[in-house]
């Protein structure tokens, strides 16, 4: 299911840029970071940073120096799950004898990688989200640089020729008042001619396809990895049987225990809770501990209590009407992060794999409507209820958004499903949505009446 709304990958990429550049530039950069901003305008992204300027370490290259910069690219690498691609190389410049030597100052750069394989987009006027993904980096004093780009949204499909155009652009550097250095990255800055190249992204390592499928939904719940995707992966896992499914989850855990997979435990938890159920009907499936608020507090405060288990049997996930839902909480990341290898062991020791595949029995918007009227939600305090409502509605909409007319553009930043909920709900009711078992996705019987 490809996203029809172009904004989402852009949004994600913007945050990715922010996340990784923080990690890299901060650790190697000599100047003290003062302030910064990051965002996008239309299809163009930008990032501004202000540093305390240290004479002798940083320098603003002259026009001539900029023109002489060339890049020696190293072979790119990808992680075993084929999710992150590491691009690295050395920035060189000509010395007085005309020989190329590594640049001798710290230089900021933006690295661009084309989204589509086999094409050579024109980047003389910079790049944008439609043609490239970008990442900022600090070139070290020995001229080397390294960036990690997430291929998740725009990687070439397996079997495609993985040759992608790459290049670098230089940000505008100005020394400001108080001697601070202002670095302004614009994806619209022209990509240096000398840097353009075609990089061969290596084929991903041979790993069981199910692991790649898990990696695909690792952003659950999001617009790109929603419950429909989770159902698809969960059903594939279920078919493998208990031992193989657990083996796959453990393998995924091993492989994703590297930098860049901050929420790897989230998907493990979501999948394990979706495909397993306790062998003993009396056993609780709530495995988390800690001090939380909202639903988490209710679910965890009395784990052994029968009434709690009646309400939230497999917190923080629940299967309702054949669909996995994630309940909201401020602490959801914390909750998921507390999932560990021990939990997978627990599933091995106490659970069986579900007998039937996950199969939605009604349209997700209606399921959410009923769910939210249940006393367990009504009894939450208003803030937590609102939060859960927002998250559940968002998940429901993500599952069928490709079948619906896109939401108005003013919501492009973060579509406010809630404000359009009534409309969406009536569309969902009037359109004959059904779950296609063959395609493992929602389909429409009749056209949508807007």
């Amino acid at each position, binding site marked *: 299911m490809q996203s029809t709304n172009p904004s989402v990958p852009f949004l994600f990429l913007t945050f990715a840029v922010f996340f990784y550049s923080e990690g890299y530039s901060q650790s190697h950069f000599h100047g003290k970071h003062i302030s910064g901003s990051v965002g996008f305008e239309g299809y163009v992204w930008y990032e501004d940073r202000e540093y305390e300027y240290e004479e002798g370490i940083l320098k603003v290259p002259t026009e001539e120096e900029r023109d002489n910069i060339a890049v020696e690219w190293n072979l790119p690498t990808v992680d075993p799950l084929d999710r992150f691609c590491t691009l690295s190389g050395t920035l060189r410049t000509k010395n007085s004898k005309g020989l190329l030597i590594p640049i001798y100052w710290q230089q900021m750069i933006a690295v661009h990688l084309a989204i589509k394989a086999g094409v050579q987009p024109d980047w003389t006027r910079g790049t944008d989200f439609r043609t490239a993904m970008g990442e900022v980096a600090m070139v070290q004093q020995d001229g080397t640089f390294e960036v990690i780009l997430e291929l998740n949204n725009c990687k070439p499909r397996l079997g495609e020729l993985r040759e992608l155009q790459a290049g670098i652009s230089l940000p505008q550097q100005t020394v400001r008042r108080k001697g601070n250095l202002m670095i302004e990255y614009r994806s619209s800055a022209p990509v240096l001619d000398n840097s353009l190249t075609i990089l061969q992204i290596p084929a991903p390592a041979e790993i069981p396809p199910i692991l790649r499928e898990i990696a695909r939904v690792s952003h659950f719940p999001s617009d790109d990895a929603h419950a429909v995707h989770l159902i698809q992966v969960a059903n594939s896992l279920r078919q493998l049987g208990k031992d193989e499914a657990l083996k796959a989850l453990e393998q995924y855990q091993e492989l994703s225990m590297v930098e860049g997979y901050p929420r790897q435990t989230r998907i493990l938890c979501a999948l394990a809770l979706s495909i397993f*159920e*306790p*062998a*003993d*009907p*009396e056993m609780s*499936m709530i495995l988390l501990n800690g001090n939380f608020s909202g639903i988490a507090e209710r679910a965890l405060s009395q784990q052994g209590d*029968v009434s709690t*288990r*009646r309400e939230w*049997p*497999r917190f923080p996930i*629940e*299967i*309702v*009407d*054949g669909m996995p839902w994630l309940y909201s909480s401020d602490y959801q990341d914390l909750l998921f992060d507390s999932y560990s290898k021990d939990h997978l*062991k627990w599933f*091995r*020791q*106490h*659970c*069986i794999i*579900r*007998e*039937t595949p996950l199969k939605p*029995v*009604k349209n997700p918007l*209606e*399921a959410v409507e*009923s*769910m939210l*009227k*249940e*006393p367990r939600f*009504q009894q939450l305090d208003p803030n937590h209820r609102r939060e859960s409502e927002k998250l559940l509605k968002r998940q429901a909409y993500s599952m069928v958004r490709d079948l619906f007319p896109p939401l108005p553009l003013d919501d492009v930043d973060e579509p406010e499903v809630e404000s359009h909920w009534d409309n969406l709900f009536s569309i969902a009711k009037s359109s004959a949505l059904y779950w296609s078992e063959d395609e493992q996705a929602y389909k429409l019987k009749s056209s949508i009446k807007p």
Partner: protein
Amino acid sequence: MIINIACSARVGLAQSPSNPILDIATWQERLEPNQVEILNTLDELQHHPDIIVKVVPELSAILANGNDATQKLAIRCLEHAGPLPEPTLNLLIETLDHREFGLRFIASQTLRKLGPQVVPKLKIALAAKSPRVRANALVTLNDLITIDIATLDKLQQDPDERVRVVLPRIWLKHGKVGTQKICELTTDSAITVAIAAVRALQYNDSDPEIAVAYLRETVQRPDTYEESVQALTSLGIHAKPAIPDMLSGLRESEIDRDVHRGFDSNVHKALTYIGPARVEDLQRLKESLTFPHPLTQELTANLVGRMGPAATSLAEDLRDAALHNARETKRLKEQEALILDENRRHDFSELNNRYGMACEQSCQSYWRVTRDISKTMALIEQVVTILAEPMFYFDECEFATPEDANVLSTWMQSDNPNLSFTAAEMISKFPISSLTPNQLDTLQNTRGLRWKLKEIATRKSDPIWRAHLLRWTEKEYYSGRLSIHDLADFVKEERLSEPDFLSILRTNIIIGDTYTKTSCLNALATFSVSEADRTEMILQCVRENPDQRRAALEIFLSQEKFSAEQIRFAAVSLSNSDPYTVCKALSLLAKAGPDSISSLEAIKKTPNPNQKSQVRNFEALKLIAICSIENQKIEHQSELVTIFDLTEKEDVNAINLLDDIGARSEFFLPEIERNIGQVLYLRENRRHYLLPALEVLAFIRNDRAANLLQSFENDRDWCVQRYVKHLKRFRETGEHVYFDSEDF
């Protein structure tokens, strides 16, 4: 109303009996938007079964055709309906096969609440085709009746693990027969069943021997290791025969928990709980002493040590283990130093520590089994030489004799500091009075042992050690190695008694250097000494050292009331050349109020010590003091201004002092109020008087003051506005808010 809707829907259903499926659909369609709300309301009507019973047919319809949310609510409502018709009961039993385990669980709970009426149905359900129904029926039925052995026997052969997994805890009701059956399930092919059986065994008290026999098998299997250890722990001393099996089966997961996560492994706890091993198991324990992981060796050594002389036959093995582990520790330490990666180095050091622990445990156990201190010290000497560092971790040596202490005291004087340190550490774990005061004093002079002995002394409650600590403390103090602060800390930590400390203070307050004297005075200010004692000591200090006068006054000022002696002291201080000392004296006299009447003349005559000094408001302070003593009204506006000036600039105590006066002398207040009004209106340009003036107003409990305060609520200055708001709150609630001057 909602019930009416539900009932009217039922009427609608009754009117068209021809096509029930269609009717149910119609009913649902009519009610669908409100279905969840209606069910919620019905659920809340749980104490009115008469109402719920009327809608049982509708609830059954929802149970058959609803979605997850409505089905769940319908099941919950049926819980309160009392006796149910057969079709509804059948539906509930069918729900035990629901695709979601949450709903199955709720259905099972509801069936339980419905009581005996469901028993025949559940008995039939035990033979249902669906294993989910069989398993849920079994657990539900188990709560309602005692299921007979024949039925359970039959279910033990059930091909589905979901049925077998619930059997162990059901068998618990059946005594020895049940225990045997549970034990059989520990070897079940399904891991879930085996684990459930092992877990059930820990609650079995009818036949612990047979349970232990089976657990000795399961503890060897990786999948059931942890549960088996827990079960054995619950079985207590019955589990002794399983100790060697527990050690030989020690799993990575346990090692991980113990070594890397910093808390005791289950097996560690189990061994502590189960108690010493049996003598007949010594041979197997000997094998464990040579196991590759140091944790196994450490635990085994501990276990053998606890057996005491009964395990003498393993003494040589313990010796070998100690030396082996010492060498390993040394080797790993050398390797560790070469590792650059911090994380790896950390892991390495964890393992290394573990070898160290195994080594120390082996030495200790060697002593416990041989009870020969000379041999043990010979071993320790070898170990310490290999390690090139002392040993720290010794358990309490309850078996040690005074002769052992004598031997150790010789070792404590060894030239090898690591050895003497280790010997001192060992002796610290002896029962009380192992060393004579003379021995301690001798050891005190041993190189490198002084601090060690002190550290040990602070841990011990033994009178000999306490006495040693006191002697040591005094000695160290007079040799300049300790400060008054250190001693005060000792008192807080109860390492030094208060009388001892005070005697040191008493001496030092007279003979100490300036710094020591100030420290002594500070210590006195914070110590709960009797008032007379404190005054006497302070005055004594000041008599000897006039430069400590200000510090003394500060200490007195922290009191609420002052003795005649203190007031006299303050009056004498008025002639001091230090303006701050004079200010403190004035403050004290003002605070003492009429009690300091005898000093009035002295105050009036007090010259301003230094007009240019930073104490700009000396005159105002004097005025306050005089007024406070005479209970006199402040009649002149200029005097008030001076006070405000003081409160504005003398930021430390002035406001408090003014408050003090205001609070004490009620009759001051109208006068202040009248004058404040004038100040405020006449001297609009001197806004900086305003805040202290307003603060004084807040203390005046009459309407005029309130009105006056109110009139500033909309002052042009937002700081004043905020301040007035705070003050009004203070007037109303008495809740005093501390205002940070930076706020304004």
